[in-house]
């Protein structure tokens, strides 16, 4: 689309200024998002493996009845059962109500059950907003996911913040297409070497162009996910359901409208799970029992997508008879355009539809988007290099660019050091803050850009190598045990960290030897 010069200049200003004002925050959300793609694996790795690859391999019916009988009948409205990253079965028996802040919430009893012995490992009662995310073993993956989802800001402001950043990324992607006149002709033009500024511009444009489809999808789905809960549902609930968000959610989920509170015991859950596995083509990953002990009870079983598929249908069962009622779309009671489109948003955003392969590609795409954001900021600063304010901000880009992965690694170190005392809920975020402060302090004290880059790479290398050593040294399982128990992914994670750490140390050494050969190299923006 050919724009007039005035409009192009305006778009460049908007693209640039919005990037400068919010770019570093956007980088935080993108990098933590890339890491959060592996949140389940990180949770499993930090717990030294999962106790069972198939949590429902052992019959669960007797245990489910035992748990239901141990709680008040008010908590029989919904029973959600799903595995966590450590392989424990989490059963949350609850009712739908509002919490002290007046927000819709779920109140009930949460059990953590060992997948093989069905022994109760933990039990907590209260609102979902209070009793989830307080398990010390899940502290690391929960911390990283929350950092991405809401920057650890209180609701709804955190979601508004990440939602706005998603819109910013969307605007940057679209304006980038409109600004770049020769998008297709420049598709294979490597960053040119004739001038520093041209090289910086080419780096940003090339990475931006190639990552455009992914950036667009990620920005759109990310903005939707942030705004849907915090703004969309309350708004639609107010207009279409007189403010009753619970009624809106039940309509969307597709809860059976006909109510029959007549007492009727639930059929055998293991039979339903087996039938669901046959119908769904994969092992069940969790289920929800609605209206336990009533004639209108239903069971909805979730699955991971089958081989080659992007989405997976849930399977619906009549509770008292155990009769298979057929596949159930993610929302609504029958297939619709809305359920199809919504069903695509989650796999496209999270990249978790095809195991390690899709997660690895999504992680790499996230890193490319980080590169686009940082090179855009560096390009902006390079164009204004003669002004001291922009030179200082260029230093801030380097500090945050390196400092964030250092802080993320620091949170992992804090997690492992505090795990023996089960103080991870405090020390994981505290270690993130300490590592951030150290990175910022180093950035303030070290004046030469190349020295700074070398120190940051050293810090990253040491932190990455320390993580698997701490995991094993502080009570975690060794590689032999992990391979024998089918937890090869934990070993793979350790190896990736060791290799990445070694890579950073080599990169730091490389910078040192270049500095030794060119002692008077001009300081510019910190080396990449």
């Amino acid at each position: 689309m050919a724009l007039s010069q005035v409009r192009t200049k305006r778009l460049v200003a908007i693209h640039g200024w919005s990037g400068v004002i919010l770019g570093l925050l956007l980088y935080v959300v993108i990098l933590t998002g890339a890491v959060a793609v592996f949140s389940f694996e990180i949770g499993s790795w930090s717990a030294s493996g999962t106790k069972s690859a198939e949590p429902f391999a052992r019959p669960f019916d007797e245990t489910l009845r035992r748990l239901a009988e141990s709680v008040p009948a008010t908590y029989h409205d919904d029973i959600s059962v799903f595995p966590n990253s450590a392989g424990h079965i989490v059963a949350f028996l609850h009712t739908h109500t509002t919490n002290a802040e007046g927000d819709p919430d779920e109140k009930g009893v949460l059990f953590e059950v060992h997948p093989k012995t069905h022994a109760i490992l933990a039990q907590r009662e209260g609102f979902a907003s209070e009793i989830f995310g307080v398990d010390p073993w899940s502290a690391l993956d929960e911390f990283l996911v929350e950092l991405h989802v809401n920057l650890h800001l209180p609701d709804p402001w955190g979601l508004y913040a990440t939602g706005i950043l998603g819109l910013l990324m969307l605007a940057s992607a679209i304006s980038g297409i409109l600004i770049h006149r020769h998008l297709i002709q420049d598709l294979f033009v490597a960053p040119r070497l004739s001038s520093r500024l041209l090289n910086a511009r080419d780096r940003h444009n090339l990475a931006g162009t190639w990552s455009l489809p992914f950036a667009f999808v990620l920005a759109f789905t990310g903005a939707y996910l942030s705004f849907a809960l915090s703004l969309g549902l309350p708004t639609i609930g107010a207009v279409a359901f007189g403010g009753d968000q619970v009624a809106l959610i039940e309509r969307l989920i597709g809860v059976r409208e006909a109510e029959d509170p007549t007492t009727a015991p639930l059929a055998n859950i293991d039979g339903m799970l087996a039938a669901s596995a046959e119908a769904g083509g994969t092992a069940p990953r969790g289920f929800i029992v609605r209206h336990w002990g009533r004639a209108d009870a239903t069971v909805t079983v979730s699955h991971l997508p089958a081989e080659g598929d992007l989405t997976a249908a849930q399977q619906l069962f009549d509770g008292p008879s155990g009769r298979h009622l057929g596949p159930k779309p993610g929302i609504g009671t029958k297939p619709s355009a809305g359920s199809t489109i919504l069903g695509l948003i989650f796999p496209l955003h999270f990249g978790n539809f095809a195991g390690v392969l899709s997660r690895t590609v999504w992680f790499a795409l996230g890193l490319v988007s980080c590169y686009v954001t940082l090179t855009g900021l560096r390009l902006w600063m390079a164009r204004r290099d003669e002004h001291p304010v922009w030179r200082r901000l260029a230093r801030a880009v380097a500090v945050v660019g390196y400092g964030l992965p250092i802080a993320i690694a620091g949170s992992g170190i804090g997690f492992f050091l505090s795990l023996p005392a089960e103080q991870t809920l405090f020390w994981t975020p505290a270690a993130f803050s300490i590592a951030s402060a150290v990175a910022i302090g180093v950035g303030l004290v070290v004046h030469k850009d190349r020295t700074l880059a070398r120190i940051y790479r050293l810090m990253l290398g040491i932190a990455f190598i320390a993580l698997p050593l701490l995991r094993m040294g502080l009570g975690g399982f060794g590689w032999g045990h992990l391979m024998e128990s089918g937890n090869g992914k934990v070993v793979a994670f350790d190896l990736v960290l060791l290799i990445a750490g070694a890579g950073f140390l080599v990169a730091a050494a490389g910078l040192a030897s270049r500095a030794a050969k060119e002692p008077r190299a001009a300081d510019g923006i910190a080396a990449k």
Partner: protein
Amino acid sequence: MEQGKRKRRAIVIRWILAGPVTLAVAVAVMATMPLWFPQGAAGIDHLILPLILFPALWAVAFFYACLAENLTRAGVILIGLLIVNAATAGWAVWGAA
């Protein structure tokens, strides 16, 4: 001098239109979509699609505010959209009760 002042005023108006006004328009249009959007086969499209389309609503309004040559007309259209949709949503929430 006068031209400089007018230019700065135009920039400020455009930032306001492309910023808070655009966001408000997107929220207001999303709010009224359940009242007219087709319900679909499962009776939920009019509830879920406004949520899904919210980023698109915002993007259309944002780029209109950025690229419109006639700033006055853009302001009238965006604020008009905001008033009409906000009033409709307000009537749905409080008027029908």
